[in-house]
């Protein structure tokens, strides 16, 4: 019988939540790495027992932990993230040049085909790759070498590379996104990159349609249709049908088009989920009601999903890496909040229940569907 393992990164450790396919009763394991910030935990699709975790602290810096037994035990692997060559500068908040400085790993993306290969998106924005299970890291410096690198600027949360999407059909293609530079695509395995921000409109930058400078919060794709991308931007929910060459807005009837997460149903490529957040100044749900919004039409037409979610006095946030889906049928949808709740729906969002209520603030949620 299938099982589900939810990997939760929080401000004070990692937690693993496991259930059978009914997804009704959950076992909680953790905290792992108690007291440390765990930005992201993700398992290898090739070997689900291989799990990587990004562990960091203002005191002790960055560590990468690896488990080869499904999270029962962990070993620290390589944590040397050194920019390739002379790092150069990007823009600081005041517009002056600022040297590139490594701060932390925001996102880990294991290869779709090789359990030893894993990508890391870091702050200050850069993409690293390890081909030996996380022991050694090498920058794919063509990304920072994109001619726009000197014009990239941090968002309020830092200049993090937070989204890495690997194309399951074309192994040479991947997408990344950076706050607040925008989205980029490589078609040659990471050697060269193209800014894919045409169609984005950001009123908060001097040129709202500039090549770079857009605060992309998250991009999602369905593996059966990797040229179709969905984006939650700082404001606006966007869609591209041509691998990011052109975006169009699909915010439609959302109560607010600000938010962080976006994800796609495991079996319905046109069914997408977002969690609207009132504004960038408030960072909590409108009207104190926590609601997921689902579109079954690939955007524009959205329905509120609120069965089982707090209907009043709820002022949590849902951060960009804190939503995921399983691949069971019906599809399970999961998200975590800054209030420490992890909510799950075992029926594609129709009804929700908390798996856990009182974790530290949740930074990331990933799901493994296990045979």
């Amino acid at each position, binding site marked *: 019988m299938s099982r589900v393992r939810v990997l939760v990164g929080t401000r004070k450790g990692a937690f693993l939540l496991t259930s059978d396919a009914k997804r009704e009763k959950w076992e909680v394991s953790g905290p792992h790495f108690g007291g*440390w910030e765990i930005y992201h935990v993700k398992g290898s699709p090739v070997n689900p027992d291989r799990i990587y975790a990004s562990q960091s*602290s203002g*005191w*002790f*810096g*960055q*560590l990468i932990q690896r488990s080869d037994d499904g999270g029962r035990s962990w070993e*620290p692997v390589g*944590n*040397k993230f050194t920019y390739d060559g002379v790092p150069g500068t990007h823009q600081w908040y005041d517009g002056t040049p600022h040297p590139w400085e490594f701060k932390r790993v925001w996102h880990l993306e294991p290869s779709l085909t090789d359990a030893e290969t894993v990508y890391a998106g870091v702050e200050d924005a850069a993409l690293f790759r390890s081909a030996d299970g996380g022991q050694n890291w090498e920058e794919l410096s063509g990304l920072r070498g994109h001619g726009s690198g000197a014009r990239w600027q941090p968002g309020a949360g830092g200049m993090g590379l937070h989204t890495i999407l690997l194309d399951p059909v074309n192994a040479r293609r991947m997408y990344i996104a950076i706050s607040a530079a925008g989205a980029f695509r490589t078609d040659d395995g990471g050697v060269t990159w193209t800014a894919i921000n045409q169609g984005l409109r950001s009123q908060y930058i001097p040129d709202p349609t500039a090549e770079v400078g857009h605060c992309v919060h998250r991009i999602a794709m369905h593996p059966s249709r990797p040229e179709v991308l969905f984006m939650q931007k700082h404001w606006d929910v966007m869609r591209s049908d041509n691998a990011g060459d052109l975006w169009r807005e699909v915010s439609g009837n959302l109560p607010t088009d600000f938010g962080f997460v976006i994800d796609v149903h495991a079996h319905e490529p046109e069914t997408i989920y977002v969690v609207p957040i009132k504004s960038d100044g408030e960072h909590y749900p409108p009207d104190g009601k926590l609601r997921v919004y689902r579109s079954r039409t690939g955007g524009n037409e959205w329905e509120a999903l609120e069965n089982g979610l707090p209907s009043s006095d709820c002022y949590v946030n849902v951060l960009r890496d804190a939503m995921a889906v399983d691949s069971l049928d019906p599809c399970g949808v999961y998200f975590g909040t800054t209030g420490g709740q992890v909510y799950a729906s075992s029926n594609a969002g129709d009804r929700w229940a908390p798996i856990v209520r009182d974790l530290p603030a949740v930074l990331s949620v990933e799901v493994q569907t296990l045979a």
Partner: protein
Amino acid sequence: MIRVVLPGHLRTLARAEAEVTLEVAGEVTQRTVLDALEARYPMLAGAIRDHVSKQRRPFLRFFACGQDLSHELPDAPLPDAVITGAEPFFVIGAIAGG
């Protein structure tokens, strides 16, 4: 033998006791003590000082013999009491963050 006291999180990371003892070849300085520490516990590399620049991480301090040695040169000899093992070399995490 040089005695080194680690903060709690680094003990957990290294799976070490609060105080570890190290053989340090040659002159006993911050640099040689930390080199020996990282050689014994490779997972501590990067957690106390930067991998490349070898600069102390900003929220850590080095104390010994009732003195803050954090701003001493990395190649300056440590106090005799540390060299003889009478006193430990402390790696301290700053009390910060609210």
